[in-house]
């Protein structure tokens, strides 16, 4: 009798440990200030491409998901501090970040671009940009690119979120912004407050700075969760859910090649 009880207790304990690694419940860190990928609706609900993708992936994995909004600055530290288990926040896969976290495959890839007030420069040139104030979101691939390539010639103004950068561009505190082209076009240029602004310069996608596209960040070593996400990305790519979400926000292919 006692032996049976012992075995039963052991089984129960085993059962719980197995369940804990089962990823039945996944907490996902998102940003919420990066339209159209991630933003807060007037009623306080999170919405956007990242959010919909997160929900679709969870459904494909058969997991229950909790979305946690977190400022960009602290988004990786909070993952490492186990405040959540994955980051779905348009985070580009770069060598630097790979030293701290693991990434899944990309779930989209779009080029970066500058914007300026209409007609400020007739043609894009590094010469004409000298001394201009260029706004960028702090700790992004765009920040890195700008610091490495234009650090000496322009004045870089760093923002905590893309929304704040838009406010200062319209207030005239910065002359240009560098960011993801889709975020700029849908989050700003197509809106009424962006009507006096335009893209300038080439599409920027040098893998040295811009990585391999946006992926999902996972704590190092949790490869089972990464694998689950990879499988889920393949699933929603194959069954049309990805295209449905894409068409809700964009009229072109955001997945890239």
């Amino acid at each position: 009798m006692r032996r049976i009880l012992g075995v039963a207790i052991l089984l129960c304990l085993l059962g719980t440990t197995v369940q804990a690694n089962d990823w039945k419940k996944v907490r996902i860190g998102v940003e919420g200030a990066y339209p159209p990928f991630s933003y807060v609706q007037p009623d306080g609900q999170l919405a956007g491409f990242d959010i919909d993708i997160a929900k679709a992936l969870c459904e494909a994995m058969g997991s229950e998901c909790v979305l946690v909004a977190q400022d960009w600055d602290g988004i990786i530290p909070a993952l490492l501090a186990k405040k959540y288990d994955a980051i779905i926040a348009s985070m580009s896969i770069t060598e630097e970040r790979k030293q701290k976290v693991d990434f899944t495959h990309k779930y989209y890839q779009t080029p970066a671009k500058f914007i300026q007030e209409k007609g400020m420069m007739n043609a894009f040139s590094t010469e004409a940009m000298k001394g201009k104030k260029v706004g960028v979101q702090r700790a992004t691939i765009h920040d890195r690119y700008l610091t490495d390539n234009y650090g000496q010639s322009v004045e870089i103004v760093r923002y905590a979120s893309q929304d704040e950068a838009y406010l200062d561009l319209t207030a005239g505190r910065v002359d240009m912004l560098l960011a993801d082209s889709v975020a700029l076009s849908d989050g700003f240029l197509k809106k009424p407050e962006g009507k006096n602004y335009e893209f300038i310069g080439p599409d920027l996608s040098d893998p040295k700075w811009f990585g391999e596209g946006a992926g999902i960040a996972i704590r190092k070593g949790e490869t089972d969760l990464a694998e689950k996400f990879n499988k889920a990305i393949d699933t929603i790519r194959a069954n049309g859910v990805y295209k449905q979400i894409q068409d809700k926000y964009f009229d072109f292919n955001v997945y890239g090649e």
Partner: protein
Amino acid sequence: MNLSIITENFGIYAEGLQNTLMLVSISLAIGLILAIPLAVLRCYGSQRVQLPIRAFVYFFRGTPLLVQMFLVYYGFGQFEVLKTSIFWPFFREAYLCALFTFSLNTCAYTVEIIRGAMVATPHGEIEAARAAGMSTPLMLRRIVLPSAFRRALPAYSNEMIFMLHGTALASVITIVDITGAARIVNSRFYSPYEAFLTAAVLYMAITFTIVFFVKRLENRWHRHLQPQQQTAEDN
């Protein structure tokens, strides 16, 4: 702990330290210079003069510094009238917006500190000044203000330290102060502990410097309040 992150990025912290020191010293100076006449008017002025000063103090003490800064930085940028006016080159700069807000904020608190100290002047001193035939400006200069500054010093040193810590908010509007430097370093290397600990140490160093100088000033100004030192002649 990886201290090489800090040593390699000391340039950013040096820039931050310089900006913080500039912000705090200029805003404290402007605040104090404005606060002294305002406090006098607040005590001796007519109702018509007192009312706007009361309203000013009430607003700046009644709202958080962060909200005031957002009002000036993001709020003012919304008005086309202001954006086309001659004031815009001033409010365009994040640095000057912060300086503007901090100066007015510390001014409001300092007005109250000095006013409180002036009101606490012993009645006998004022009577004596009046009896000696002093006019109000002369009495202010010779009797009320000197003793008010003495009484205000401990409270004002607190205000200086609060202002120093308040300048950390400047990092929210793109200024690279000590906190801003810590945020850049943190976001580049994802090591919040090292980045913010360095900032904390720098703030502590400035605070202790302030405390040190206030202490010296107190020893000078409050000599009459200290227990009498026994000297050789007394024995």
